[in-house]
């Protein structure tokens, strides 16, 4: 890799041990992936965030880099915490787990992370612009940043992202380069109407399976999908596959037309998606046969204030059934707004628990012994069988709320 004199000085140890270490890792990874040089990036989003996914090795790695004197030199945000940041004891977090989580929190705080623990940093305080080079991990946020914002990031990696935050640079490769952002597969969305809310994550789940890491171009998206719709689509595609960029014609800034999105590439495959394909994938997304559920979990990725308002509106004063536990996961920004608007109080009166800055996948949920999770998240649908050890029922937000009220699965389709 070609390094500048400044970069060579860092590599030589002129700027301290932590910067030397971070530079060594970046050069090594860059060379592994055939990058020619390092490029400046404007922000970093970390995934070494939860003891449940970092394990002892991850906690020790963060501590060692922090002890060397590692400090972030660009704005650096972080994924959800591995436990409820308001009250981890009430969330039945085991004491030993909490100790390790606190060690991890202390290490990243020491390096200067912005402590809003969330997978949706773009909701408020780390919103990249069109064409901006950033270095984010968190697969769902990467997919959102490339697809919706038109920013540029690869799916960066845990620990490497810490090094990028310390140096403020990333190896130039993959989606930083124009030639690697061209569409590869044409997806003809033949539904003929705006998608329903549940169809966005279902489409994402389907595309993740079909595309793997290839860049899909979606033609035929009708209406005006909300940020929340696009968030759920991107998150599901990044979980069931490794989708980092979708060109949604008319929505993705680089994809004003199909021709724009392919930029001269010939589509290597055309995938047609009809209404019945979405219904079929929805069936595949349910691993539970019966009608009983004991847990309804919303907020993967973190719920926005608009989604919290929507749940309040669907409830319309009703309470959830005593046999069902229902949690909503959100970041401290959305929670603060919900408190000011009186929404949190209304939701809690209905029997819903707001879980702060964590989520069902990366907190020790198995302590609760839930058997079946019902969710509106395609991403949660992918991970829950492994990470929560539960069956899964995927449905619309409305069906999730209605089921929580009824005490059993209520489906419209």
């Amino acid at each position, binding site marked *: 890799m070609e390094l500048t004199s400044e970069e060579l000085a860092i590599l030589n140890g002129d700027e301290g041990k932590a910067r030397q270490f971070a530079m060594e890792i970046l050069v090594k990874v860059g060379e*592994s992936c055939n990058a020619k040089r390092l490029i400046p990036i404007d922000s970093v989003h970390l995934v070494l965030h939860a003891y449940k996914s970092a*394990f*002892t090795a*991850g906690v020790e790695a963060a501590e060692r880099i922090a002890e060397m004197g590692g400090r972030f030199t660009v704005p650096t945000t972080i994924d959800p915490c591995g436990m409820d940041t308001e009250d981890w004891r009430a969330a039945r977090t085991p004491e030993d787990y909490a100790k390790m989580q606190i060690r991890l929190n202390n290490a990243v705080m020491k390096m200067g992370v912005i402590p809003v623990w969330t997978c949706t940093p773009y909701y408020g305080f780390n919103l990249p612009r069109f064409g901006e080079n950033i270095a984010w991990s968190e697969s769902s946020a990467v997919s959102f940043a490339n697809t919706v914002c038109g920013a540029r990031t690869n*799916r960066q*990696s*845990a620990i*490497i992202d810490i090094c990028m935050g310390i140096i403020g640079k990333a190896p130039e490769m993959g989606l930083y380069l124009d030639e690697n952002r061209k569409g590869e597969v044409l997806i003809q969305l033949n539904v003929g109407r705006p998608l329903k809310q549940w169809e966005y994550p279902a489409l994402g789940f389907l595309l993740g399976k079909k595309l793997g890491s290839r860049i899909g171009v979606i033609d035929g998206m009708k209406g005006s999908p909300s940020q929340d719709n696009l968030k759920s689509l991107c998150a599901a595609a990044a979980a069931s596959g490794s989708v980092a960029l979708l060109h949604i014609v008319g929505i993705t800034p680089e994809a004003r037309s199909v021709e724009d999105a392919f930029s001269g590439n010939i589509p290597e495959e055309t995938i047609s998606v009809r209404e019945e394909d979405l219904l079929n994938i929805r069936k595949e997304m349910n691993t539970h046969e019966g009608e009983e559920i004991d847990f309804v979990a919303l907020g993967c990725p973190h719920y926005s204030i608009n989604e919290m308002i929507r749940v309040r509106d669907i409830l319309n004063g009703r309470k959830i059934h005593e046999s069902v536990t229902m949690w909503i996961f959100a970041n401290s920004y959305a929670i603060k707004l919900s408190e000011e608007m009186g929404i949190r109080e209304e939701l809690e009166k209905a029997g819903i628990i707001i879980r702060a800055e964590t989520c069902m996948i990366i907190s020790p949920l198995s302590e609760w012994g839930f058997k079946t999770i019902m969710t509106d998240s395609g991403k949660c649908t992918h991970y829950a*069988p492994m990470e929560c050890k539960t069956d899964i029922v995927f449905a619309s937000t409305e069906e999730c709320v209605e089921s929580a009220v009824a005490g059993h699965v209520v489906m419209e389709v």
Partner: protein
Amino acid sequence: MKELKGHVVVNGTAEGNAIVTGQPFGFFGGVDPTTGIIMDTWHELHGENIKGKVFVFPEGMGSTVGAAIILELVRTGCAPVAMLNNKTEIITAAGGVIAKKFYDKDLPMIDGFDCNIVDEIKTGDYVKILEDGTVIITEKE
């Protein structure tokens, strides 16, 4: 016996029995790092163990926290001895690079063969990986 040559992503030498899948693989939610057992219920290798094996899969997928899971596999001694891919993405490569830094353990990774690697090796074949990216495959009898 046959020989293939790939691009060295993470260097080192290793040998062992292969475990092969044609499906992409994500380490978070994919493998229990305290045992090496594949826990992804959506994956065809569900229930198999990658500990001590040469793990062959087309490319990575899913969560970007995968490198931490690979690091924990190395720490617990449950890691594969090597990984062979068509395309090793940064998340997987990072696991190998950091394992060397923090635990001084080699976890060689090779990609970029001029063939589809998952078609060339079968589960149970004995595979030897050399420093220069040469892969020697002895078919299972």
